[in-house]
């Protein structure tokens, strides 16, 4: 299970997980940190393997009055799959994974929909993959800071000054030629 409020740990290596990134570790002195506004972060943990991972994303919002297909679900599924595959490479099993979800706040009333839509995506994805969400802190109007120690599944989530949250720009696909087909 996830344990809250990690104690101070000497020689801690703190890694900031930026928007669009996924990080996985089984290092006992590793801590992943991120600050979220409208963005959502998923923390996955396999208690038997002692492995955890965090990602951080903000998918493009569907413009008003358009089909939901405009929401970049393809990229979202890809970012979640990157995290899960990295967990598997570190010895985790999908059936043992447990999830925490944080973020999806509405810091700007004009952008109320994007955080909620991203939180909904993360929920739907984890439900489809049969990964149980054991704790979530989503929505609201305040930014959050999340600290996660992956090897033990310890999480701390607290609200912070909204000015600390990164600007609300959707996580765009990298310019690399993903989706291109190479025939051998």
């Amino acid at each position, binding site marked *: 299970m996830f344990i809250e409020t990690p104690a101070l740990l000497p020689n801690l290596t703190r890694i900031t997980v930026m928007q669009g990134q996924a990080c996985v570790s089984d290092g006992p002195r590793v801590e992943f940190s991120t600050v979220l506004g409208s963005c959502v972060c998923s923390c996955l943990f396999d208690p038997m393997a002692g492995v955890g991972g965090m990602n951080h994303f903000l998918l493009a919002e569907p413009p008003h009055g358009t089909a939901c297909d405009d929401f970049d679900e393809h990229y979202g599924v890809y970012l979640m*799959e990157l995290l899960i595959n990295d967990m598997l490479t570190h010895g985790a099993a999908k059936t043992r994974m447990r999830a925490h979800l944080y973020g999806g706040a509405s810091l700007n009333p004009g952008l109320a929909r994007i955080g909620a839509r991203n939180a909904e995506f993360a929920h739907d994805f984890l439900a489809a993959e049969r990964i149980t969400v054991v704790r979530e802190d989503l929505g609201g109007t305040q930014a959050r800071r999340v600290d996660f120690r992956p090897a033990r599944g310890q999480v701390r989530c607290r609200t912070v000054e909204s000015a600390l949250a990164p600007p609300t720009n959707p996580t765009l696909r990298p310019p690399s030629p993903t989706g291109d087909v190479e*025939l051998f």
Partner: protein
Amino acid sequence: MNAPAKLPDPTDLPSPTRVLTVDDSASMRALLNHALTGEGFAVSQAEDGEQALEWLALNEVDVVITDINMPRLDGFGLIEQLRAGTRHKDRPILVLTTESSEEKKARARSAGATGWIVKPFAPDKLAAAVRRVSH
């Protein structure tokens, strides 16, 4: 009296290209099913290499699209087993993966894959690739 116009024989219509997708992610299977059925393909889906082999033992298919990282039997193992027999020796197999390393791509190629696609996939490019390898 004129002879009645001959109606087209429904059996003359081309049957849709049959595609088997192999991916352990339910979300990815849903995206693939939506993208490929929308392009007129007949789609079947398996959750890993083992399930794909069981399905292929009883069913015919024109193109296989497989992920690499899967439990039980991964994409490399699936390709190797299909190529080891005679029935699927020449079956087009497209790899669709989050892997971007040249080493993994080379391994897929030497196992007998027909093509390599890095996720996130573009539905139109994927459909074009399926059409190209199935003819």
